[in-house]
């Protein structure tokens, strides 16, 4: 009789542990992680307040850097920040009011067009929209 009881006990406990080992990951899975959304190509580039006129901000967009600018006139535009010459990351130059690449002095105007230096192509345009107090950038 104690033997039969032992096997039943063993069976019950081990199956219970297996069930627990199945339900524990499921329960953890169901709780959303701290960063609630996948970083899809609809990225919050910046808060509207932090992007002043005649300034720009580089931010990650998918696997590559992108740049969102506010022109001196107040328009918000976004481009891929990968320089079309040799792939360096471009930046905003408020003194020139242009987008500039530090590697070989490449210049782009505020429409992303390559206007000086080695870059052979304009920067890829992205779509920037303001939603509330956030600037959302997505693929064009």
């Amino acid at each position, binding site marked *: 009789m104690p033997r039969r009881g032992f096997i039943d006990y063993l069976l019950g406990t081990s199956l219970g542990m*297996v069930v627990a080992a199945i339900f524990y990951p*499921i329960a953890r*899975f169901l709780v959303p992680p701290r960063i609630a959304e*996948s970083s*899809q190509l609809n990225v919050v580039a910046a808060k509207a307040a932090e992007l002043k006129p005649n300034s720009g901000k580089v931010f990650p967009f998918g696997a590559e850097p992108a740049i969102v600018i506010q022109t001196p006139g107040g328009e918000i535009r976004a481009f891929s920040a990968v320089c079309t010459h040799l792939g360096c990351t471009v930046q905003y130059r408020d003194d020139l009011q242009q987008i500039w690449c530090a590697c070989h002095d490449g210049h782009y105007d505020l429409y992303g067009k390559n206007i000086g230096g080695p870059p052979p192509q304009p920067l890829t345009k992205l779509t920037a929209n303001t939603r509330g107090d956030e600037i959302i950038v997505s693929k064009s």
Partner: protein
Amino acid sequence: MKAPGGGNPLEWLEDRLGLEPVLKLVEKKTVPIHRHTIWYYLGGMTLFLFVTQVVTGILLLLYYRPSSDAAYESVQFIMGQVSFGWLVRSIHSWSANLMIGTLFIHMFSVFLTKAYRPPRELTWISGAFLLFLALTFGFSGYLLPWNKVSFFATRVGTQIAGVVPGIGTFLLRFLRGGDDVTGATLTRFYGFHVAILPAITALFLGVHLWLVQKQGMSLPPGEDERQVKTMKFVPNFLLRDAMGWLLALGLLAALSALFPWELGQKADPFASAPAGIKPEWYFLFLFQTLKYIPAKVAFIDGDVLGVLIMGAGAALWVFVPFLDRQAARGEKSPVFTAIGWVLIVYIVGMTLVGYFT
């Protein structure tokens, strides 16, 4: 009828649901014991793996996003950010492959033991449709991560569908949701994968399982019904089933932890196809066969001929119970046994060739 509030819960349910036939089955159902008994476990194994798919699939769709600009990132998110997301996703991918593997073994063991003979023709037919449904599940699910490999595999696969004479163009546009593989294809495949196919499968699976319970296990020809030893379904067979299922679960866990399913790179519709693009292993034998058919045979395109042959083959496969007259009469049916072995060797061989070349 006992008064409510008293008695045990089982009796309470019994009184309301009329569970007696079920309980009787549980009591009475037996499983014959002979040298081919081991193959009886494969149907249940396939069912277990299917249930795993449903559970992990439901969990995945809480985080997955079926649009071309978010799908890949959402799978990346599941793999990297969600607690045990890597486990759920890898189990889902591995279990899909294992399920199709056990499905094939189950199907061929049934074929070789002639279990399709009367009165089990409908079980075989519903099973054939479950095969087609499983392959469609695999094909549609494969695209969902929207990575390079799956994008091109889908393009090639749907292109082959487009080759069917007459309805080919319609079929291609129906599958792709347009003329090319795009985000529309992804959304459509998602709809197939999580709604349409599960609904149809539930139907066929219900019929398949009900028939199996109603008609009991088939005895291979040569075994004598009166003399064969049996074991009770509950608890003997079921406990053995459970052991197998637990081992399968362990295997899935090990595969997921040690060989996590790859994510690859995001699909780029404008990039050229990577060299040596192949479909998943369970389509490889079909793909390889198409490769061996010459580009033109008499006046027919090689592709068209291939698709027609496969269609014809599938139709014949469905109607096997009606073609094998000898087995129907209870006689030995060596021709069909031979066909079975030839098919097994062909499929395994072609798969290996496709894999290693």
